[in-house]
């Protein structure tokens, strides 16, 4: 009897040992996390991703999915307000965009317009919580820290060019309101900080982050490094013996040195662009971010996020003056995005670069959250529009949003899904959720859906439980 029990125990222990390696430990160090599957890059349609992030809730009916134009009239009923801009035709037959987006409309024959994205219902609205969900595919809070999609991609695919960091985040500062909540998802989470974002808050100063410290020329930089190497060799550290920690430390110091003196670092320098090109993109930080993204993709970046920047009540987050402010927002994004697509195409890069434009949710004049939902703390909207200040989409709407994609095998001149013609303007066909969006992006990059790591002994997939489905309609069929 005793013997049997012993056997079983030994057996159980062996089983545990066998899975130990896979279970790793709860260390956030990704250095020895091993994924169950390696990316099948041979099937990849894209090498790089540019995410154009419309922070703060971009209203679909005021941008890429316009409805009936209801011009401003003093005293008009709020519920009568539908779209506050007239619409204008795009290059696609029968497809109109809201006025002010003609540039983007002109390149839609190169990409797909999704009109049926549905953001999750997370109860009463907090932008950063929806943004967390969009970027990680996991609803906050989580008991472990999930990685940003850029970190997953950086981890699975690594850099395209070894000296360009694989995950670059352009335009977001964290000194703004909700900065801590923003930090919560701008992170590689359990994958470890090695895969975290490389921040460039101001694209015009991108070069600062990848060149030797200010005031140090290359000659001195090299001489400093030589001094360092010589001192390392003669330091008394030998008495402690070699170790993987020391090796990893010296290796990363060497890598940093190589990056900072590499010619590729010039990709971060916008001043090297011809003035007319620079001016074409320069509608502000977002526009220059698009230009920087293009330069980085040319030099071999993997994942780049360019944001209009989230700052509470600013940018796309219109709680009043929606109409007036959106004019400015459209002017900020229209030309640079059009130019980005054209430039990528001209350079033969668009086919291998997936460009995604998205926002955490949409907006509406009256509807907060979902139809039928009674969401707390709604933005106050008067029954009647007395001034231009009241004219615009000031509440948060989650049930129908627009998203654009180009390149990376995405169909050209295609429209997916539609929203209702009458309020509520919710998605009525082909509803798309974030798990599908993520899985489709991973699909384009050749990262298989079963990609997972064991964290605190639990499997943790790129999409929750690995169940996100690829939106197959999105891609041109392969032969």
């Amino acid at each position, binding site marked *: 009897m005793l013997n*049997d029990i012993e*056997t*079983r125990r030994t*057996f*159980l222990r062996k089983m545990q040992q066998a*899975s*130990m*390696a896979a279970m790793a*430990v*709860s*260390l956030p160090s990704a250095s020895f996390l091993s994924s*169950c599957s390696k990316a099948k890059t041979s099937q990849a349609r894209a090498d790089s991703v540019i995410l154009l992030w419309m922070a703060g809730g971009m209203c679909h009916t005021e941008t890429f999915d316009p409805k009936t134009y209801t011009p401003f009239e003093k005293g008009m009923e709020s519920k009568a307000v539908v779209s506050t801009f007239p619409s204008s035709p795009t290059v696609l037959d029968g497809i109109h965009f809201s006025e002010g987006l003609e540039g983007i409309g002109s390149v839609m024959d190169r990409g797909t317009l999704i009109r049926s994205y549905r953001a999750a219902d997370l*109860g009463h*609205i*907090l932008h*950063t919580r929806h943004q967390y969900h969009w970027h990680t595919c996991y609803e*906050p*809070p989580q*008991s*472990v*820290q999930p990685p940003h999609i850029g970190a997953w991609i950086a981890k699975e695919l690594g850099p395209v060019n070894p000296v360009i*960091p694989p995950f670059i985040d352009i335009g977001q*500062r964290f*000194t703004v*309101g909700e*900065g801590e909540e923003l*930090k919560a998802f701008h992170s590689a989470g359990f994958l*470890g*900080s*090695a895969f975290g974002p490389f*921040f460039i808050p101001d694209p015009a100063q991108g070069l600062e982050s990848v060149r*030797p410290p200010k005031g*140090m020329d290359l000659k001195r930089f090299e*001489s*400093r490094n030589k001094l*360092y190497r010589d*001192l390392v060799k003669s*330091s*008394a*550290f030998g008495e*402690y*013996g070699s*170790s*993987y*920690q*020391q090796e*990893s*430390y010296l290796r*990363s*110091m060497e*890598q*940093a040195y190589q*990056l*900072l003196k590499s010619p590729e670092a010039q990709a971060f320098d916008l001043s090297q662009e011809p003035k007319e090109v620079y001016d074409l993109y320069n509608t502000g930080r977002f526009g220059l971010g698009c230009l920087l993204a293009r330069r980085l993709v040319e030099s071999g970046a993997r994942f780049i996020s360019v944001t209009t920047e989230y*700052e*509470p009540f*600013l940018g796309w987050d219109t709680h009043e003056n929606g109409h007036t402010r959106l004019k400015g927002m459209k002017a900020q994004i229209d030309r640079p995005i059009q130019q980005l697509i054209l430039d990528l195409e001209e350079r033969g890069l668009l086919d291998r670069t997936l460009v995604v434009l998205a926002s955490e949710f949409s907006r509406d004049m009256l509807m907060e959250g979902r139809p039928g939902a009674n969401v707390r703390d709604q933005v106050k909207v008067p029954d009647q529009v007395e001034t231009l*200040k009241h004219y615009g989409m000031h509440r948060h709407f989650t049930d129908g949003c627009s998203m654009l994609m180009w390149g990376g095998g995405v169909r050209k001149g295609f429209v997916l899904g539609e929203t209702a013609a009458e309020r509520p303007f919710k998605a009525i066909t082909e509803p798309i959720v974030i798990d599908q969006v993520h899985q489709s992006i991973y699909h384009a990059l050749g990262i298989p859906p079963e990609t997972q790591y064991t964290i605190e*002994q*639990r499997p943790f997939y790129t999409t929750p439980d690995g169940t996100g489905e690829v939106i197959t309609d999105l891609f041109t069929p392969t032969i």
Partner: protein
Amino acid sequence: MFLLSSHWLLELGGKLHPLLVHFPIGLLVGAWLLESWKHWRQGSQDYRQMVYLGAFFAVCSVIGGALLKASGDYAGETIRWHEISGYLTAGLAILTALYYKYRSDQFPGRAYLLLSISCISLTFAGHWGASLTHGADYLSSIWTSTDQQDQVNLAHWQSLSSADSFPEDQLNRLNVEVRALFAHRCYQCHSEAKRKGGLALDHKEGVFAGGDGGAILVAGAPEESEIIRRLKLPRSDEEAMPTKGKLLSEGEIDLIALWIEQGAPWADTTLKVFREAPLALKRPALPNTPAEIKHPIDKFVHVYFQEQGIEWPNLIDDRQFIRRAFLDITGLLPKPAAIKQFEENPSTNKRQELIKHLLSDKENYTLHWLSFWNDLLRNDYSGTGFITGGRKQVTDWLYRTLIEDKPYNQMAKELINPSKESAGFIKGIQWRGVVNASQRTELQAAQNISQSLLGINLKCASCHNSFINNLTLEQAYSFANIFAEEPLEIHRCDKPIGKFTAPGFLYPSLGEVVGDSLKERLASLAEVVVQPANGRLYRNIVNRFWQQLFGRGIITPVDELDNLPWSQDLLDWMAAEFIQNDYSLAQLLADIMSSQTYQLPAVNYSSPAFVASEEFVFRGPLIKRLSAEQFVDAFAQVVQPFYHSRSYDPDSLEMDCEWIWHEEIEVERRVLPKPGIRRFRKSFSLPIGQQISKAQLLMTADDAYSLFINGQKLLEGEDWQQVQQLDLPIDILRKNNQIAIEGTNEGIIANPAGLLFSLRMELESGDTLFVHSDRSWKTTKDTSDLDWTALTYDDSDWGGAWRAGRFEKSFWGVLPSFNFESTDTALFVRAALVKQDDFMKTLGRPVRENVTSQRSTTSTLLQSLLLTNSALFHDKIKEAAQAWLAAGQPPMEAVEELYVQALGRQPNPREKRILRKQLKSAEPEEFLEDVIWSLVLLPEFQLI
């Protein structure tokens, strides 16, 4: 062995082994095939050259293999067989070659026979070699497993199965074993949590309901059961199960088949599949060891070393010891004088005395260990007002707890049953909106207590019955209900299941948690948890401290206390001793650190994976990298203070003034201040007939400022962390006075800006008057007027100042030097009290949204980039270099002094040569900057 492997040529030889082995394989087998052909076809070709060459390479391979073994962590049966067969092959090959050379003309048959034997031996060597590199089952996995180890205890069942029916207890056991198999091999995909193919194997209903494809078993008829069919399919078949990991062994499948044959009985006992550590502590007797092993910890380690065949190595020297002890207790570097004094101290007991002395420096002990506790209690994160009241800090409580060395049982009590000050830990983080049921704050409380205090993972069980330990969903809710005002409805995977459960603790054997109100239950829970019978609580903290000091816990990961320790006796003895010593954390540190075990040299373990595995053998501490906080503090000690501002101020020297700035509005919204110059004015009057005896002011601004009083320029500043203090000439003040400040927000894009001002005037009457920066000040962005500093200037069209205090929490924190009492303007603020910033974050200080049990010890490119080109870091180095030169010290002397400060030693002659050479080719300031930079990034400085 270590010496041997350290020469690169030898290492290369070893690395070439996997390449070399293919030559003898190709050549000898090739020769054998050709010889066979020749024998068959009576040919006359000569293949002897191939045999010679094959023999030569066989010898090379063996040498390479020996070198490889010497340099790596190879051990065990497989390697032994590979080694033996390898040597045999080489021997045989030489013999064969010699035979071919001298005798094959006479006896060609014998030569061929010898060659054949060599090839057979080669085949074996190759097989064992492949088993090493591809895994033991690389060959056998082609067939259904014949692996003897996985035979479970089938023999036992087979001996029984001759009888037609089993007694009930045997049936139950059989079922439990099958369920254990399911748990380990199938749950990952087929459980309530996952239900791949609609199948859940983690409960009776699921097993008998089957999956989308119908029933998986037919009781009594294994041959008709789908599960058996699928399990027996070869790996190549799409339907083969499991799809992940190894296939089940024949024995395992037979066991399941036997269970089905017996009618698939289901035992209604709660299944305890996973190892559970006993709650109670062993109190092992101190082992008998040689007289020179006196310390109890050393006695246990000595026994362990004997079992493992490890000799005690030489202990570290005084210089290493004092550095290690300082960094481990205070997080600071020892000062050169302290090192010297320590080295010269003849006392045999000096190391123990040092530990005692360091622990008496309560403030620095607290400021170092604060980071450990902040990580563990996920304290010191920062939130904004948007998540109203959704977070709470316990910093104040924690600081006092550590500085008082509050008994740990009391500390745990106060965390579980908190006062207002310690409420943040179980309060958790409440995000706005609807959250997943498993992340309700009550469940967060249960999860965090489980992880941080008890070393068990409740996160899985918060959603569904756990498949990594024995905890159930109901247990998780029961635990969470202790913290709930109203009982929580159980949600499985975020879906309500209509069930409720009574409040209760995870380990009912420790006693019941009673109470109708929340307050009563918390008090009751606290008593249940902290009782000495709950060994987990104490093992947990001892194990975590051990990890802090040695780089790896006695059990790893420290969050999984049910894993096997490398020495249960040592762990339990320390935990029991800790209880004996009135739960003193400082005493626990003293106990561990006064052992010889603590003085073992750092060990070069092969890889992080090995350290994390159960195969780990303790030989001494891991090499540790300075934590973000330790690095910043060490830098501040040696080079230049890094931070001047705290987010938490234990001394509470805060003054009553406000950070203010010009209010910037865009489309009716306040926005981040734009770069540019803003002007500020404030007038004040002195009471009539009062004489001022003394006037002092404090001033700082982000980013720069010029200060005027009554039109006279008094002060300028460019670094907001450098508070300026000025004794004001009294004659400058009149009855009516005008303060005018020009502030500059630098940068290209909008960023935080503010100024902070205080003027203190002592009157001869003994009264004190203050003028503080606040919202009564006036501001403008118009800079056209020239006379704006004058008292007579009309500022009626200026706006009111905006209180920029919102950046205070998230950005500036508290400036301890902004105080009339503080005289030390170069005050250096300990990193643990500084708000998280990008610099420390990149160096590994966690964001603390979740409990952090261990920080990463390996380096990343982003870290090195930061250290190589961060402007902040570079500026600090520049300031330091300028300060050294300003003090008039010759550069070489300064460098020697720096070496002593940073490394506790003079540069050696070789280093001096390098440094002198460098000095010749560079400006002194640049030279000094580059030396400082190199010095603080040397592994000798960075690694402990």
